[in-house]
């Protein structure tokens, strides 16, 4: 039997990200054997509302990540607004109020880099639509650990800067349309 290679997913999304995330989460199989950890840039302080929007139509639960919370398979975790979300050995969540990175907090670079340290080659990173460069450096960290890099097709993204910046800086293993991302995760992560 082939050893399952991947064990966790991290996703970066910014402008236009909510619709994009919904499209991905809608297609995810509830038996997915990985935690899904998400940074969505937002001006809103209300994480619960955002979780509810994402959870509607998603087959897996979407919760706001709490400090020290264990990250379990089949659950999606959203970084709380105003805090960086990091992954620590466990795996579990950690929060920080450090300076903004790429003008944002939470920053996907912070999430991706810390997650790559924990899950190494077992990590799948996904960069979706957005109008900045957050996630590019983080994706480079994931690739340096031989994790899998998935980027939304820039021409299809509502904002193409973030996918493009990631492709420039880190490259990708898959450049996909939104409809293809969920099924890929299911193939790689469902037993």
């Amino acid at each position, binding site marked *: 039997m082939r050893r399952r290679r991947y064990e966790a997913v991290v996703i970066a999304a910014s402008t236009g990200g909510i619709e994009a995330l919904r499209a991905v989460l809608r297609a995810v199989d509830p038996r997915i054997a990985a935690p899904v950890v998400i940074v969505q840039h937002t001006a809103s302080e209300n994480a619960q509302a955002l979780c509810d929007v994402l959870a509607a139509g998603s087959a897996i639960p979407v919760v706001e990540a709490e400090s020290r919370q264990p990250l379990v398979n089949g659950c999606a975790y959203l970084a709380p607004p105003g805090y960086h979300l990091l992954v620590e050995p466990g795996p579990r969540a950690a929060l*920080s109020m*450090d300076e903004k990175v790429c003008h944002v907090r939470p920053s996907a670079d912070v999430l991706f880099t810390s997650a790559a340290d924990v899950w190494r080659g077992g990590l799948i990173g996904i960069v979706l639509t957005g109008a900045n460069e957050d996630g590019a450096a983080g994706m480079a*960290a994931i690739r340096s650990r031989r994790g899998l890099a998935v980027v939304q097709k820039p021409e299809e993204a509502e904002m193409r800067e973030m996918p493009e910046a990631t492709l420039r800086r880190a490259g990708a293993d898959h450049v996909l349309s939104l409809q293809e991302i969920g099924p890929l995760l299911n193939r790689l992560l469902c037993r």
Partner: protein
Amino acid sequence: MHPSDLQDVEITLFREALRMRHGYDFSGYAPASFKRRVLALQAAVGAGSLTQLIERLLHEEGFVREVIARLSVPVSEMFRDPRVFGLLRSEVMPVLATWPVINVWQAGCAHGEEVYSLAIVLRECGLYDRAHIFATDFSDEALTRAEEGIYPLHDARTYSDNYLKAGGTGSLSDWFIARYQRIKLDESLRRRVTFANHNLVSDGVFGEMQLIVCRNVLIYFGDELQDRALRLFRDSLVHGGFLCLGSKESLAYTAVDQDFERLAPGSPIYRRVIRAP
């Protein structure tokens, strides 16, 4: 070895150097954010590697102050989380008013943003003259800045919005003067404030407090260190005293959970209770 794993090795050595040479112990900090801080420090001082950083830490006189200043995360705001400051004003102040003295400990005060916020609330509630605020941090650099009470003008707008949302009864601009691109908080707000260095890792209990405010510090601590700090807070509080944490911090699953009651569901404000054995 992956470069990031090599950095982990260097960070372990750096941590030891800091402890053995200067007495600062970061072993109880949450590892991922600590790593970020050390790498940010390296970038800020232009060290070619973390190993070079260790060299300077060991041999360069006075460098440790800058190291601590940069490992500390003095990121804050006045009245950050207005809802919480609103609760302090509407729920906590009336109880504090029943005590003859009001000792407040602000632990991890960064550049003082929350110290002045608390001072303003106490003033507007008519309690300031009976109050004494102990503002502590383990970074001397942060304490110096906190004493100055000077902030960038472009933050004043956010601070003012926060202040109003938190139930401020006047206008925040009553409490500062704007000059050039900065604001300076009214010096009278400092009259009953004592700034002091206190390290939550190694220092002890702090008097008989009616209110302890420690926000967004525990998120940086591992479980054991968090428990240590929380025991310290518990043992520094009078019966019925209040503990105010950051909005993403809670006492759930900690060593002192049983010693406190939540003020309101979902709020990070707790009250010290003595339970019958």
